[in-house]
C-alpha cells in the first residue's frame, strides 16, 4: 500500500504542470471574460453570445460541424468495415495510408483544395471536359464543409476501425449460423459493438469542427463567419480580449454540453444492450 502511494507521487510533476499550464490559463480566460477593458466586473462578455451576429455564427458553426460529422461518419464507417474485412496480411499498411496525408502540412492541403475547387480550377476543368456543367463551390459553406470533412476524416476512420477489430469474429459467425441475415447482423451486432469507436470518432470530429477557423478562412473567402472566426478576430482585428474570452467560455460550455449529451446517449444504449 505504501508503495502504491509512493508510486502515485510519480504524477506529482504532472499535477504541478496541470495546475500551471491547464488550470491557470483557464482562470486567466475566465478573468478576462468576467471583466470589462477597464477591469470592473461584468457578465456582458458572456451574454454577448445573444447578439444576432454571434448567435448567427454559432448556429452556422453548429450546422457545419454537425454536417461534417455526419458526412465523415457516412464515409468512414464503410471504409472501416471494408478494412476490417480485408483478407490481407498487411492491413497495418493500408490503415497507415489514411494517416499519411497528415504528414503534409494541413494548410498546404487545404490550399490545394482552393486550386482544385476554384471557378477555373481542376474540378471544373474536368467537368467541362466531359461536357458537364461547371459548379461554383469555392468560397461557399459547402467548400468549408468539404475542407473540414477532408481534414477530420482520418479521426473518424481510425477509432471505428479500432473498435471493429476488437469484435470477436465468432460472434458474427454465430449470428449468421443462427439465421440472421447480413443487415440484421450489421444493425444488431456490428454497429452496437463498435459504438465506442463511433462515439469517440464523433467527438474527435465534432469538437474541432465546432471551433475551427483556419479552414473557413481559407475556403470561405471571408464570406463564412464561424464562431471560431469571431473569437479569433476579437483577439486579433478587434483586439477585444474580454469579449473574445467571454465567447471562448461560451464555446467551452457548449462543447462540454454536447459531450455530456453524447455520454447520456452512450449510457442509455448501454443499458438497452444489457437488457
Amino acid at each position, binding site marked *: 500500500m505504501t508503495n502504491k502511494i509512493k*508510486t*502515485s507521487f*510519480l*504524477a*506529482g*510533476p*504532472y499535477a504541478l*504542470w*496541470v495546475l*500551471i*499550464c*491547464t488550470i491557470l*490559463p*483557464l482562470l*486567466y*480566460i475566465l478573468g478576462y471574460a468576467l471583466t470589462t477593458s477597464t477591469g470592473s466586473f461584468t457578465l456582458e462578455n458572456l451574454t454577448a453570445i445573444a447578439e444576432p451576429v454571434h448567435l448567427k455564427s454559432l448556429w452556422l458553426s453548429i450546422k457545419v460541424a454537425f454536417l461534417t460529422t455526419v458526412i465523415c461518419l457516412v464515409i468512414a464507417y464503410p*471504409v472501416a468495415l471494408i*478494412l476490417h474485412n480485408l483478407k490481407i496480411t*498487411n492491413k*497495418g*499498411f493500408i490503415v*497507415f*495510408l489514411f*494517416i*499519411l*496525408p*497528415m*504528414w*503534409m*502540412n*494541413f*494548410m*498546404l*492541403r*487545404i*490550399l*490545394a*483544395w482552393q486550386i*482544385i475547387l*476554384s471557378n477555373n480550377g*481542376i474540378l471544373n476543368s474536368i467537368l467541362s471536359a466531359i461536357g458537364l456543367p461547371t459548379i461554383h463551390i469555392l468560397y461557399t459553406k459547402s467548400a468549408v464543409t468539404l475542407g473540414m470533412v*477532408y481534414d477530420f*476524416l482520418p479521426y473518424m476512420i481510425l477509432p471505428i476501425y479500432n473498435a471493429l477489430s476488437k469484435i470477436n469474429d465468432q460472434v458474427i459467425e454465430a449470428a449468421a449460423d443462427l439465421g440472421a441475415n447480413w443487415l440484421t447482423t450489421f444493425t444488431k451486432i456490428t454497429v452496437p459493438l463498435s459504438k465506442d469507436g463511433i462515439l469517440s470518432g464523433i467527438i474527435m470530429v465534432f*469538437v*474541432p469542427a*465546432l*471551433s475551427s*477557423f*483556419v479552414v473557413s478562412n481559407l475556403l470561405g473567402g471571408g464570406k463564412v463567419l464561424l464562431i*471560431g472566426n469571431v*473569437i*479569433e478576430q476579437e*483577439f486579433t482585428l478587434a483586439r477585444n480580449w474580454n469579449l*473574445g474570452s467571454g465567447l*471562448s467560455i461560451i*464555446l*467551452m460550455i457548449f*462543447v*462540454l454540453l454536447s*459531450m455530456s449529451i453524447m455520454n447520456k446517449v452512450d449510457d442509455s444504449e448501454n443499458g438497452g444492450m444489457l437488457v
Partner: protein
Amino acid sequence: MTKVKKGASYFYLGLVFLFLYAPILVLIVLSFNNSMSRTVWGGFTLKWYLNLTANDNIMDALGTTIRITLSSSILATILGTSAAIGIHYMKKRHAAIMLGATNIPLLNADIVTGISLMLLFTRFTPLGEFSVVLAHIAFSVPYVIFNVLPRLQSLSEACYEAAMDLGATPAYAFAKVVWPEIFPGVLSGFLMALTMSLDDFTITYFTKGAGVNTLSTMLYTQLRKGIQPELYALSTILFLLAFVLLLVINYKGEGRKEAHK
C-alpha cells in the same frame, strides 16, 4: 456476387483514397512548376528542389520546427508516462480529478488553448521558441497519458507483486515487468505527440515570439501573399520521407510478427 462486392469495396476504398490524396498530388505537381504563381503552369523545373537548401528562411523554419517538435514530444512522453503510472496507482477519486483535468486540452478549442497559454506566458516569460515548446507539451501530454493508461490497466498486478516477492527492487521489477508491457503505448503516445506538434498551427501562432517561425506559421503568412515554391518542394520531400520511413517500419514490424508465429 462476392466478386462484385469485393470489386465495389475496392472501388469505394479507391474513391476515398482519391479524395485524401488528390490535394497531395496537386502539391507535388506544384513543386515542379516553373512559375511563382500557383495558378499558372510555367513548365517543368527542378529548381525549387535545388534552391531549397539555399533558402535561409525555409531552412530556419524547418530547424525550428524540428527542434520544437522533437523536444516537446520527448518531454511530453517523459512527463506523460510518469503521470500515467502515478495516476494508475492513485486513489480513485484523485485519479478521476487528474483525468478530468487531462481532458481539458483535448476538449478545448485549439484557439482557446492557444490564447489562454499566451495570456499566461506573456505574464511570466518572454514569448520565444521556449514558450512554444511549453505550449506543445501542454497539448500533447494528454495523448501520451491516454495511450499509456490502458496498457497499465491491462497489466496484471500479480506479476509485479510476484517479482517484488521474489526480491526484486521496485525499479528492477518495473524495468522487467511493467516497462515491456507499456512500451507500445509509450511509443504510440510519442508518435501521436510528434504528429500533433508537427501539424499544429493555431497554438504555435498565439504563443510564438518575434522572428520564431515554424513551417506552419510561415505558411500561414505566405498563404495570402503567395507561397515560396520551395515550400512545396520541402513538403513533398518530407511527405515522401515519412512514407518511406513508415513503409520500412511497417515491413520490419510485419517481419517480426511473422517470426513470432
